[in-house]
């Protein structure tokens, strides 16, 4: 029973980790309709920023989020403006995908050039402290990630549903041409959305960096799972990404313990395929509940 609880909690913590790095990805996809293959590298970039700020300025890693998230926002806006937007009129949408793949490779090699291949350690600053809840152990940092991922998801939903800008963003997602006719600056909304998506992953970087050593390839460690999470949750659904992340985290943890680490990915991706076959649009494919919004 104790072991079961530990496996369960480990799964939830893993789910929270996947959720916090996936939310920005689904946001960008849902609205700009671009699969951002550089998402993992945005995380990597954020983690290096956290590393630099904490080690040079001695600021607590969690506090770096107020600097890193805005910086990543700018990176996101610039990516949309200078990489994606020029390709918007391209006949084939896939060109944008290739552009983000190129951006991802460029960023990895840039990081190799600047920081070298070795790992960079952000000081954990107390976030590695184990906390015992009954027989179950978690890290303080993992609880922070869980809390932060919930705040992020709820906050984003509220922003999209309750604010004027959020409504405009959703209008663009729903019907680009109509939104433009209503006087919404579509390009500006795309830049804003890409910026917000990148800021989300920058925010995540502040939580993730104290627990995971940073390296140029760290993004690829998270991004494959992030894609699975986002597709499983229903592309573009912020709440779906959270639920998808929890499901993947739990399956990963239980399969890893009860079946074996070597078959973990077989099980995770097997279940993933099964769900998609049964419900091709993903589990929560309401696309930011757009059906409830009048244009």
């Amino acid at each position, binding site marked *: 029973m104790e072991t079961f609880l530990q496996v369960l909690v480990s799964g939830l913590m893993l789910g929270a980790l996947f959720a916090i790095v996936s939310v920005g990805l689904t946001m960008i996809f849902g609205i700009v309709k671009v699969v951002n293959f550089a998402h993992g590298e945005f995380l990597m970039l954020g983690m290096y920023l956290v590393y630099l700020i904490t080690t040079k300025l001695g600021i607590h890693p969690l506090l770096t989020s107020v600097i890193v998230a805005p910086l990543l926002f700018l990176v996101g806006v610039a990516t949309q403006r200078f990489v994606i937007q020029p390709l918007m009129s391209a006949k084939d949408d896939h060109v944008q995908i290739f552009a983000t793949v190129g951006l991802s490779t460029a960023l990895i090699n840039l990081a190799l050039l600047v920081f070298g291949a070795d*790992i960079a350690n952000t000081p954990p600053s107390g976030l590695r402290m184990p906390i015992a809840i009954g027989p179950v152990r978690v890290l303080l940092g993992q609880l922070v990630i869980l809390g932060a991922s919930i705040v992020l998801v709820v906050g984003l939903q509220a922003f999209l549903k309750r604010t004027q800008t959020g409504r405009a963003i959703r209008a663009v997602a729903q019907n680009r041409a109509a939104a433009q006719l209503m006087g919404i600056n579509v390009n500006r909304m795309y830049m804003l959305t890409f910026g917000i998506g990148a800021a989300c992953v920058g925010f995540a970087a502040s939580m993730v960096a104290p627990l995971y050593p940073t390296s140029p390839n760290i993004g690829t460690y998270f991004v494959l799972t992030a894609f699975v999470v986002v597709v499983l949750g229903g592309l573009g659904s912020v709440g779906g990404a959270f639920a998808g992340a929890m499901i993947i985290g739990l399956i990963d943890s239980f399969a890893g313990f009860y079946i074996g680490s070597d078959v973990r990915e077989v099980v995770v991706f097997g279940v993933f395929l099964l769900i998609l076959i049964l419900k091709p649009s993903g589990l929560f494919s309401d696309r930011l509940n757009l059906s409830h919004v009048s244009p």
Partner: protein
Amino acid sequence: MKLPNMLKMTAAAIVLSATAAHADVKFGALYPFSGQLALLGEESARGLEIAVDEINAEGGIHGEKVVLVKGDAVDNNQAIGEARRLISLEKVAAIFGTYSSARSIAASQVAELSGIPYFELGAVADEVTSRGLKYMFRTNPYAKDMGKMIIDMVVDKIAPGLGKKPGDLKIGIIYEDSSYGTSVSKHETDYAKEKGLNIVASSSYPASTVDMSSLVLQLKQAGADVVLQTSYQNDSVLFLQQANEAGYKPAAVIGGGGGYSMQPTADAVGHDVIENVLDVDFTQFLVNTKATPGLEAFVEAYKKKYGSAPRSGHSLNNYVGAKAILEAIDKGKGLDPDSIVDAVKSIDIPDGKTAAGYGIKFGADGQNERAAMMGMQWQGGKLIAVYPDAAAVTKLNVAK
């Protein structure tokens, strides 16, 4: 019948005039100098460079100055391309390399077809020398030596240290699922069975994992006293941290090179957590120098040339291999491929006579039969040689 002969004569004439034009003898240095593996690729190449400097200071090979021509093996395809360039355009007499097993395997195929000797100084996969190539030689210890030494250490040191018979220990083997982890763990399993050890868990995982907690729980449940992990850096850090956080304290953890040999790993994990963790890898620098004559001189030469201490034992092991081969070629008959091969085959350096400790004598497959790794332990934040006894600087600590 005459035409081919004439062609041969012309070819020979061109080759002769080419070598006469340069008063140097060229060798290829094929390593990953950029890309993901650049750090240790470059570190490896530095060992070769120091060996060449020494040979040149001693008057070169057959009175000619040795010149290295670099080839950047960023990935397998480029390794092949660069090997072709070194052989056909640069006309190197032989290629040295490569650090990465996959690149070595790809590039050596090119060299073999061209009949140019290929000297591997640092890659550890079995396949480097198990393919029956005529011109391929490897000086460094490989996966099999690693697996063997890890199990020897368990039997000779850890079991007696714990007051147990080797057969009573519970062994858990975990490894990253690419060819590196798979081949080392296979050798570990084979030797462990040979020695009658009890393996209670054996599991692979992808090196790109972000969570090992379920694996840690499994080992804990299986009651593994000794954990053998073959891993890169990220997964070494993850395992050690998550085992510590789960309150799992096996009597011994032994890493197979990779992340376990690197200082940033210890810094990431925490020096208190990594204390007493063992590691088997290439000879590093905190060893008993009686067993490794020339090591101090190497470190001095390295510091003088590059302005810092060596960053890992890769440079040392490349230096030892390159030095032995270059000296042998100098003593040999000439610089044509077959004379080089003959010269290298006659190398017979006993154990304890090189700066890495191991001797050099090639088997029929081109593998250095005397190559051996070294057992080390993290003590006080440093990786110190503890096994075998001749090379040990300090005692191997078992349990706290």
